[in-house]
Structure formats: structure tokens, C-alpha cells
């Protein structure tokens, strides 16, 4: 029987502020899990906990049955931060090359992988351009490309499609679905409701608490809503 890809049961405090309050989550391979919630609800902190750069104040995160943080598990995770963490003075290619080596992509495969992921985000012609000359949307796409470089089993993407135009967003989601069918677990945080509809399951988070988990249809049924947005609001997930 396959283990859950991610099992988390965490509480996170910064000083006296509780950011995440007993969030209990288990995610399987081959699903796209959407994390929905207003800004400041703790989405980003949860993603950081899952990829091992933050640690829980209480409880633990297990990735593929291994307690995080763990270096060999980090190899299997692709992470895309909410803020684009790129070296502006370097070209896109140099950024990719750097992160490819850090993530353990073999030297002889690097070039091929770089071109593959850049084609996925429609940036294959911008490889030699400096990142500081990129638009916001291009930086987002490059960050996504970097997260995909090492063929991770688990993708943790913090607002991956912000600032990306609709047609490219379609293409990226199509890629997500292809990856999922290959058994990759994808976790995305999002504000966009039509993206939420495309997730296999959704988690709604508010004030650090996971208030609902289920497939989009289940959540709509439970609350008698037509749209995810309505469902979200009736769970009390709206911005106060």
C-alpha cells in the first residue's frame, strides 16, 4: 500500500502569534492539491514547513515517510517561493544552471533539462537575457521552470500563476495535469477560483486553521453552493 507523499500535523508560532494552528494534512501522489485562503492566513508558512525551510513549533512534517527537514527529501521536492528568488544580474540560463547543480541534476543532463523546462513556460528564446530585464510574469515563469528542473516527485508552488496571462496559464495547468498523471504530487496556493476548480482536492485555510478539505464538488455540495467562491465564503473563509 503506497504511503502518503506528505503527512503533516503542525502548529507554528512566531513569538506569541500563532500562524498555523494544528493543521492536519495528508497528500497523495498523483493529485493536485489547491490551498485556498486570504492573504495572511498562513498558506506560505505551510508551504515552507512542507519543504523543510521552516520548522514546526509543534508537530511534524513527513515527506515520503521521512521527517523533515531532510536533505535527501529536499532533492525530491521542487519549491517555488512566493517572491521570485532569482539573481537579477545573471542571465536566465546562468540562474537555471546554478539551481540545476544545487538540486542535483547531472551535469550532462543539465542543458537538455533547461531547454525542456523553459519550453514549458514559453521562455526558450530568453535564455541569454538578464533576469533584471525580465517582466514580473517572466520572472514567475522562470521561477516555475527552476522548480521543475530536477523532475521532483513533489511540487510545492506558492502562487505559481500570478502575473501570467490566461493562455500561458492554460498551458501551465495542462503541464500540471500531465505531471500529476505521472504520479507527481502538486500543491499550489492560489487566489484564482477557476484554478481551484481544476484541483483534485482543495484545502481552505483561514487564520491558520484548515477549515475544510475535499474535492471541489464535495465542498460545493456540502455548502449547497454553485461556485467554489461561494463554498469558500460559507465555510467562513472570506476576508473579514
Amino acid at each position: 500500500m503506497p504511503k502518503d507523499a506528505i503527512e503533516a500535523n503542525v502548529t507554528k508560532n512566531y513569538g506569541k502569534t500563532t500562524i498555523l494552528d494544528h493543521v492536519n494534512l495528508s497528500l497523495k501522489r498523483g493529485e493536485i492539491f489547491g490551498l485556498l485562503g486570504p492573504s495572511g492566513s498562513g498558506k506560505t508558512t505551510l508551504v515552507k514547513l512542507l519543504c523543510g525551510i521552516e520548522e514546526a513549533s509543534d508537530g511534524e512534517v513527513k515527506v515520503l515517510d521521512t521527517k523533515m527537514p531532510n536533505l535527501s527529501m529536499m532533492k525530491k521536492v521542487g519549491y517555488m517561493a512566493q517572491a521570485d528568488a532569482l539573481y537579477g544580474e545573471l542571465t536566465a540560463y546562468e540562474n537555471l544552471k546554478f539551481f540545476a547543480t544545487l538540486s542535483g541534476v547531472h551535469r550532462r543532463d543539465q542543458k537538455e533539462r533547461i531547454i525542456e523546462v523553459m519550453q514549458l513556460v514559453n521562455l526558450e528564446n530568453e535564455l541569454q537575457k538578464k533576469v533584471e530585464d525580465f517582466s514580473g510574469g517572466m520572472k514567475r515563469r522562470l521561477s516555475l521552470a527552476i522548480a521543475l528542473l530536477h523532475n521532483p516527485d513533489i511540487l510545492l508552488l506558492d502562487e505559481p500563476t500570478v502575473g501570467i496571462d490566461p493562455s500561458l496559464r492554460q498551458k501551465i495547468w495542462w503541464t500540471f495535469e500531465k505531471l500529476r498523471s505521472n504520479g507527481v504530487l502538486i500543491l499550489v496556493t492560489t487566489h484564482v477560483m477557476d484554478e481551484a476548480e481544476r484541483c483534485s482536492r482543495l484545502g481552505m485555510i483561514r487564520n491558520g486553521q484548515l477549515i475544510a478539505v475535499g474535492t471541489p464538488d464535495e465542498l460545493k455540495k456540502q455548502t449547497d453552493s454553485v461556485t467554489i467562491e461561494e463554498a469558500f465564503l460559507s465555510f467562513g473563509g472570506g476576508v473579514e
Partner: protein
Amino acid sequence: MRIFAVVIRILRQFISDKRTMALMIVAPIIILTMLSLVFNGEDLELKLGVRNTPESIVEQMEKHASVKPIASDEAIESTLKKDYDAVIDFGNGAKKLYLEGSDPSINRAVINMVQSSSMGKNQEMDLEVSYLFGSNNMSSFDHFGPVLVGFFIFFFVFLIAGVSFLRERTQGTLERVLATPIKRWELVTGYVIGFGLFTMLQSAIIALYSIYVIDLMMEGAFLFVLLITLMLALSALTLGTLLSSFAKNELQMIQFIPLVVVPQIFFSGLFNLDTISNYLSWIGPLTPLYYGADALRSVMIKGQGLTDIWIDLLVLLGFSIVFMILNIYALKKHRRI
């Protein structure tokens, strides 16, 4: 592998950031050039050894300096190395003045004082002056020069290494890098090697310029100067990256300069170390520049070699290793493993 990736990335960043590269090399050169044109000497408290010298002259000299008799069988060279500024020997009818010589302002003061103390009215004196280190055409800047070369290399490496490590944090790339399986020590080592390579180039250019263009006094081997500046730069680099963990932004990093970098000048030998208050003098041996400047003066003024500077080099290396370890530890704040 991962270390190399960090090294290559840093070198690429340097190459594409021409202004920073220029700042690290050109700015110290400009300042050193200006200082070489500006500086002139000043006065100091002197310490003399005397032998075979008439009591009347000694009495005269005691008004201006601390004077101690020296046994006639003691070698003058070793006396001068024991913290004496000069030894006066009036035996056998000759009037000999042996100067320690590495500080031109002291040399001048000693010669003036000895002449005024031993001269009768309007009487010319044939003083035979010899120098253990240096010579009579050494300028004040020759004395300050080695310290300043060391200081400016330290200053710029500290600032730029610190700010660039800080920017990793503020632009989020540090977090992103730590989300990969890189180990903390690999990151720190990559930084040290990447910056170290660039620093080598920087030190070499500044040292070459100071010696061959500004024409600073240079008695020893150039290779040793390179070795010392490299070790000093390494300590600046590791200290800068370490302290950047305690700064939130570039401005706070700059605030470390008056606190951490500038005070090192006080103990570097630019000001006379003997006159520093006892409440403060213990700080000197805790600062990297203290050793770097001492070693640079040994090589450039006294022409000494590895036997006289290896302790300084070792201490500088020790500083760097300690700062690196502390930095690896400080990164725990961002990722425990």
C-alpha cells in the same frame, strides 16, 4: 559540485556587476594615492639606549626622552629590536647613532633631539647615523602605507562580501538555495572560494599599484605581501558574511563599519600602540587588522620573511576559520540541517 556552483555563480555576478568590481579595485587605489600626497610626519615620545655617552649629554636628553644605559657587550641590533627607538654610542671618539628606523617621524625626532642635546653653542656635530630598518629617505607615507593597504583591502572586502550575502537573504535567494539539498558548509565554503578568487585579483592589483606606482617602500618579497593581503581579505570576507546575518538591510550593514571596521585602525599601528590607554589596548590583539598590518610592515619596511610573519598569517587564518564556523552556525537560523 555544489560548492563549485556557488563559486561560479559568484564569479559570474562579479563579471556582470562592473561597478562593484571597479569599486573594490579602483576606490582603494584612489584613496591610497590621495593619502600618499597628503601625509607628513608628526612627533612622538622616544625611548633611547645609551653607552659611552658623557653624563652631561644624557642629562640633557633625559629632559625629552626615556634614556637607559646599555652594556657595552650587548649587540645593538638586538637592543633595537627590544622596543628601543635608538641607541647612542659615543665611544672611541666617534659619535654614532643607531636608529630602529621603521618610523620616519621617530627617526627625525631622535636625530633632532640628540643633536640639540649634545651640541655646544653653534657647534656642528658629525653624527654617524645608521638605520636598522628603513633609511633616511623614507617618508611618513612609507610607514603608514602598509597599514593603509591592509586597511582598504579589509574595508572593501568586508563591505561587499557582507552586502552580497545580505542580499541573498533580502531577495529571497538564500531561502531558495536552502530549499535545495545544499549543505550549509557547502554554501559558506562556496562563498569563501568565490570571493576569495576575486579578492586575490583585487589584492594583487592594489599591492602592485601601491608598490610600483605610488612607490611605497618595499624591502621584502612581493609574494609575502600577496599572501598577507589574501589572508587579511579572507578574514574580512568571513567576518562580513557573518555579520550580515545580524543586519536586516544594506543600511544596517553599513552601520557595522564605524563599529567593527574603523576601530581596527586605532590598533593597526597607524597610531603609536604604546600610547593607547590600558583600558583599550587589549582590543588590538582581537582584531584581524592588527596582525595584517604588523605582517605587512615586517615585509614592506623591514624586509622580513616567512619566519617573522608566519604567526600573523596563522592568526589571520584562525580568524577566518572561526568566522566561517560561526557563519555556518548562524545559518541554522534559516535551516536547521
